[in-house]
């Protein structure tokens, strides 16, 4: 009886696979990935394909709008490429001839989730008229309403209101990984109405946290796994312009690096690219710039070893401190026409290598 039963099961399986084999010759095969779906159909390949967002029963499809994309047919294979890539964990419905199929692309088990790698300014003590932050992410970020995911909370855990200049078009670096966040200038700048009525965003001596909410997404539409928090304390407002006479240059000696010390932490974005070194023949010395020590020290590592001679460090006047004061003017100051004409575009420091 036992052997007989085994035989029946075996025959059933063989019959099943035989029928399935027959069926598979006439049933189209669907495969999906992030950028396209393909249909292999040996008989009567048709471009009668529609793909919809969501898992939708056939009878409810009529008023729905199919996904935009292009169809390419090559021999027995049809390829549908959506206008934007398919989303992770997003359900889809496809109708091909008379077949309805549902599919979903699940986030891979090993997924490199978006993270905050660094934040500038990194110092824990910051001036009350601080003007901007930079958030360095591990991957290119999704820019849709990106500022909605940044907030500040006070020591009681309350979210501060009207803190960020909410721009429609996010300020993101070319590689998509560095986000610039402006503290609302109208509140930081003395005498403007938001400043008069709401006061500056941060109060002296108070503790705050900057939070990048985990709901912020990468370009694949996948969120971070946890919130990023950064604590800081507020000190006096900075109403002193950065002055190059206070910058100290340590010419390269034991190692190859040139080091410039500032008196205060500087703004990351406007510092990292506003310095240039030239030799006595006005030729630029190429190398890498690195801002360290809470953005108060700038290190230059040249591509090639230094030669003896006189060098100049050229500094763009738009170099800013944390409060937006630059080499030419305070962030909030009276600017007259004569001032404009007298302003320097570039400042110079000199050093000698013996």
């Amino acid at each position, binding site marked *: 009886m036992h052997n007989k039963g085994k035989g029946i099961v075996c025959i059933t399986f063989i019959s099943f696979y035989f029928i399935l084999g027959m069926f598979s010759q006439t049933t189209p095969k669907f495969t999906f990935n992030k950028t396209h779906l393909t249909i292999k159909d040996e008989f009567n390949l048709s471009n009668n394909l529609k*793909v*919809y*967002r969501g898992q939708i029963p056939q009878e409810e499809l009529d008023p*729905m709008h199919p996904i*935009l994309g292009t169809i390419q047919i090559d021999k027995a294979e049809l390829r549908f490429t*959506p*206008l*934007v*890539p*398919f*989303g992770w964990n*997003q359900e*889809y419905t496809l109708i091909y001839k008379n077949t309805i199929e549902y599919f979903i692309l699940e986030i891979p088990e090993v997924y490199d989730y978006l993270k905050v790698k660094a934040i500038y300014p990194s110092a824990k003590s910051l001036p009350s008229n601080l003007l*901007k932050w930079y958030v360095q992410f591990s991957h290119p970020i*999704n*820019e*849709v*309403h990106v500022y909605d995911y940044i907030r500040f909370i006070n020591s009681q855990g309350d979210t501060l209101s*009207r803190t960020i*200049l*909410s*721009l*429609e*078009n996010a*300020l*993101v*670096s*070319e*590689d*998509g990984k*560095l986000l*610039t966040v*402006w503290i*609302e*200038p*109208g509140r930081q*700048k*003395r*005498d*403007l*109405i*938001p400043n*008069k*009525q709401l006061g500056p965003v941060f109060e002296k001596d108070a503790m705050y946290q900057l939070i990048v909410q985990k709901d912020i*997404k990468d*370009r*694949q*539409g996948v969120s971070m796994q946890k919130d990023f928090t950064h604590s800081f304390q507020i000190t006096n407002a900075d109403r002193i312009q950065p002055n190059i006479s206070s910058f100290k240059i340590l010419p390269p000696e034991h190692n190859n690096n040139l080091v410039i010390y500032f008196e205060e932490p500087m703004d990351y*974005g*406007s510092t*990292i*690219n*506003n310095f*240039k070194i030239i030799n006595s023949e006005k030729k*630029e010395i190429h190398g890498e710039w690195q801002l360290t020590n809470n953005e108060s020290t700038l290190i230059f590592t040249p591509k090639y070893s230094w030669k003896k001679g006189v060098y100049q460090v050229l500094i763009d006047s738009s170099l800013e401190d944390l409060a937006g004061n*630059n080499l030419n003017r305070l962030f*909030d100051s009276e*600017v007259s026409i004569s*001032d*404009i004409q007298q302003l320097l575009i570039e400042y110079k420091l000199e050093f000698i290598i013996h």
Partner: protein
Amino acid sequence: MKTLVTFTITLILFLLAIVGYSNSSLKANFTTGNPKIMSINSMTFGPEGILFIGDSKSAQIVAVDLSSHPKVDNSKVKIDLLDKLIADMLGSTIDQIQITDMVVNPENNNIYLSVHHGSGTALLFRVDNNALKPVSLDNISHSKTTLLDPIAKDAKDKRGRELRKWAVADMKYTSNTIMVSGLSNKEFGSTFRSIDFPFTKEQNYGSLEIYHAAHGQYETHAPIKTFIPTKIKGNSHIIAGYTCTPLVIFSKDQIKPGVHNKGRTVAELGSGNSPVDMIEVENEGKRYLLIANTNRPLMKMDFSDLEAYEDSLTTPVTKKGAAVGVDYVNLPFVNVQQLDKYGSSGFLIVQRESNGNLALKQGNTWWIKK
């Protein structure tokens, strides 16, 4: 008589040829191909169906020729659940969609919407019979110019290119000139540029310094969110709406590269608010300024009031949230996210209605009256 008719027809044909020639001169340097548009931050129409696209990611302004698009009747346009419709058409979710701008071609009232998708894809749609049709920008007649500073083109600024970004906030075309306002991700300040069109290799290109006075001793070199070129008492001016609320008027003749210009603050639109879009409409012989806002309703300002106001606001606003300066009327349209002129006296909006519906619809011209 026959000679006269022949002469008249010949004259008409000649004039048409001249018009045709002069029109086509705007597109003389257009080429067909892929302008590689990576983002659409702002759009504005020029003449002859030329759409200007501000593309911050590629640091360029692209002029594309859309004159071949058929004219459609949008007089009864109404699209509900606009964000859901776009999400459906892209197979994505609403939180991955951002409508970055909406423009109407003044020559045929065709409506265009630019959309940013979270994957970093920029898309352009044309409204056709209350549906959205994608406009391919891969192979299109176009001309373009860079937004990089002339200085940035040399080695001096190459080191900063990977970090430096300049986001286009608003853009307008007037008399062979494109004016662009924007904000840098590095340094604070108003960046306002004037670029000649048609674009040339030797771009006449000015970065303009314009300021507005605050109410005490400090003046502001702040970013302009939205602006329009217009006439005030017959002379060319720019009306600019700043992110931190003042409405400021500049004389266009006085804005020149390298010259410091202080504008005249004519109104405060209330703190806690930022202008979104601004248009000029005309009805029954009177001109009106419409301003859409983040946290205030759609505002209507009478140009005759604007022209009559010759002061500059100098005293602080003492009442919280109060608006001062030129009078305006709040129209019953809140949460207007996009605004453009429709025809000579109408306006078109994308509005988040109180029930949550995001709608593309006409504003009633009834409101554009005294």
